[in-house]
């Protein structure tokens, strides 16, 4: 991370950035990496031994999130988690430990669970990212999410999105996952309210009913939400 005043107070312009790139010799594909305009170039092709030079100023990148291509302007030091929350308003994914030890920021990268606080947004280019919002919404709830509601696999709810993403990935891998597998799949997710037993129950329930898509009647309403659904 740059620390001297000069670099901090004068963010690198696009021209300065390109000049820097030339000086360091890492030019391959660089112009296409930090795009001046959304969609200006396709994904860069870096050959063996070639380095990519980014930043320190903000540049525009494209990420594929919940099936949609999204453009955003971020500094290279911005994590995928912060890009989701601060740049794209996808605040369902939570920041808790900021060092990959609690799992609250879990998203799916090409279907695999990853901690988005440990990944730079620029490194998520070219991958399919699914967030908790992409899994399901209150109106179109995913079976795993519905199972969490019905088993009361949440208390304060702050770990819940990450926990749901870990369980959903585990059941994607093995819909018949047993308790031991579920425990291991959620072993990277810390819940301070201690909701784990109900998480296990929800996961086992969702594993059994996954695919049946039986989403039934509403159990209640709260301010700001249209409907609250759950599996019966």
């Amino acid at each position, binding site marked *: 991370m740059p620390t001297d005043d000069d670099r901090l107070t004068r963010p690198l312009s696009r021209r300065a950035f390109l000049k820097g790139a030339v000086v360091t010799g890492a030019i391959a594909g660089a112009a296409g990496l930090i795009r001046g305009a959304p969609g200006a170039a396709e994904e860069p092709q870096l050959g063996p031994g070639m380095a990519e030079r980014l930043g320190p100023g903000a540049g525009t990148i494209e990420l594929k999130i919940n099936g949609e291509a999204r453009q955003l302007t971020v500094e290279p030091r911005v994590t995928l988690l912060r890009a989701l929350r601060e740049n794209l308003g996808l605040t369902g*994914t939570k920041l808790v430990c900021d060092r990959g030890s609690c799992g609250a920021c879990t998203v799916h990268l090409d279907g695999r669970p990853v901690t988005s606080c440990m990944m730079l947004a620029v490194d998520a280019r070219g991958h399919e990212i699914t967030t908790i919002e992409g899994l*399901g919404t209150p109106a179109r709830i995913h079976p795993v*999410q519905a199972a969490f509601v019905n088993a009361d696999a949440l208390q304060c709810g702050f770990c*819940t999105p990450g926990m749901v993403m870990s369980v959903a990935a585990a059941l994607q891998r093995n819909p018949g996952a047993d308790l031991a597998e579920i*425990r291991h799949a959620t072993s990277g997710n*810390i819940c301070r*309210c201690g909701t*784990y037993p109900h998480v296990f129950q929800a996961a086992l329930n969702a594993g059994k009913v996954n695919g049946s898509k039986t989403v039934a009647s509403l159990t209640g309403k709260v301010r700001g939400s249209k409907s*609250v659904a*759950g599996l019966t």
Partner: protein
Amino acid sequence: MSRRVTLTLGFEGNTRDVTVVIPDDEPTPWQWGERFALVGQPTPRVDGALKATGAARYTYDVQLPGMLYGAILRSPIPHARVRSVDLSAAERLAGVRAATTIDSGEVRFAGQEIAAVAATTPDIAADALKLIKVDYEPLPFVVDLEAAMADSAPSVFARGPNLGKPKSSTVGDPDGAFAKAAATIEATYTSPVQTHVSLETHGAVASWDGDELTVWCSTQGVYAVRDDLAVYFSLPPDQVRVIAEFIGGGFGSKFGASPEIITAARLAKAAGAPVKLMLPRAAEHLATGNRPSAVQRVKLGVDSTGALVAIDLKQHGSGGIGGGSGSSGPFRSVYRCPNIRLEERNVYTNAGPSSPMRAPGWPQGCFALELAMDEMARKAGIDRLEFRRRNNDNPVRAAEYEIGARNFGWAAKSAAPKQQGPLRRGIGVASALWHAVGNSGPEAQVIAHRDGRVELRIGTQDIGTGTRTILAMVAAEELGVPLSTVASEIGDTHYLYSVPSGGSGTAPSNTPAVRQAAANLRDKIFRLAAPTLGAEPGDLEARDGQIRVRVNPSRAMAFADVCKRIPGDSISAQGERIANYEGFRNDQSGCQFAEVEVDTETGIVRVVNLVALHDAGVIIDPLTARSQVNGGIIMGIGFALFEDRRMDPALGVMMNPTMDDYKLPGSLDVPEISVTFVEVANGISNTGVMGLGEAAHVASAAAVACAVSDAIGRPARDLPLTPDRVLAAMERPA
């Protein structure tokens, strides 16, 4: 006007009649054998889908147009005078919109607030903090509990010594009783500082509109924060609005306008733009509170029948620069004993301040008391559960011991031969006690709309217990409508007053206010329906979504059809939480049985099985109640086995302010848990609901520590029971 009513109160096999005087607009308290439509049904929480889909909006998720990001600079050294703070370089950094010093007096712990900035991005705010120049005059410090008690120790506060004055009390004649006792034991038990580790850190989003301040914050008391902010900014309280729609945990650490909330509001005022200031994880460990450490020297004495005749506790502990390290609660009230001497002393150290944490003082007190009870029982040659039975005079707990012993298989497990291999099983039992009957204060409003919707509004908050759900259940029960008819609106000072969520008081304080409001609304609904039904309002009842004549239920109108007769858009009614009646009991007991497996070669402990028995008056929602008990147990396992705030004595800083070095229980640490509730109609309020969050946590660490001691055949007296400590305990002579 009021009426005199005789209530049948108590629990299965143990009820009695109590006569109380009830104001006219107050519903008759729920009694033993009450029949409910919704109350007592396991019910998924009404806001569960918002949480499970990430749609629930926590303070951390509030994004306002033009919002800036705040950050706080903290002292890296534990004791210092601040000679000067130079903000100029930080202020010049592009993107910085406000910078301010935070004067909290002399620096007394590493992590104390020094200055703050607001900038257009979190990264720029972090960069700006690095540009603030602080000239510290370092002072001598002490972070170690025992070292702080020495005469030569550096003073944490100039006003007096680090070792506080003893807080003492004596009942009966302990010395005389010890002298005559058939057997005595004496031992010292230690427990570490535990931090709350709420997953959503402390913080706020503050926004000014002229002289009106709106603050979203992660708090256990929206009204308490409002009042603090009004005083701080010299504003009338109605010019401050505090909102906490969803709160990512609190556990006692989130009361009042803490420094980060005030700082967010100050920065927003200075910058002329909204500011979000949420603490990073390390700051959460350092500065937002903790459960104090404890060193407890316990002496017990019994007579020849195994009755406790004397208890002596001499305790000291440190909550850093804060107080409240006492742990005597369980010693004075869990078991019957005629002679009790208690002495507590607070020790100041240069570490972050304590704050209330889930049953303050009780898990550590219970741990020491219950381990001492085990040592006493073994010395007296009495089964450990039987020893507790003999010294218990609480009928609810007596029932819980029996159910628990059966569910757990205490007798069979006690009789099982000791294993010879490296893996050894052990069992333990510990008793809980708590007082969560709630109190007056809250006022609720319930509104019926012409379209048949019912809204319930009250200025309480949900720190994760399911408050919206149980309040909606109570209102729906009273109005005879399905739960889906009622929307709970909480977490906003625009609603009527409620108390902070502390002392497990949320459910017992709020449910009676809601029930009274709903009953008053129901009476208005009856008046609307009466002419059509050709009956007096007093002859109607509300059930199954209908308003109907009690003696002739076929004469009925749908609740929604009655609402269509509302002349305007809505009708509403209020209810207040009145003072407690004389009830069945004003305490709640509970006990927990634990079974562990200890690897005697590595010292690693695995909790295998935990059986919990609890009572909390009327259980509104057994599903969310069970979640709370699971959580109390698991947090107790953390306290027993893993959690420990470690301070570096040379540098005076916390060595593990992260979530990987500060160890918390995870999914692989969770035992089989069985939870059983003993339902009690206590009639202490119109619902008789008691709080559960703390009661469920009191005995867990103690039960686990007792089981570990049983497994290794030696008392394990020092928490957390990490492998090294377990192995050290095994080295001790039997």
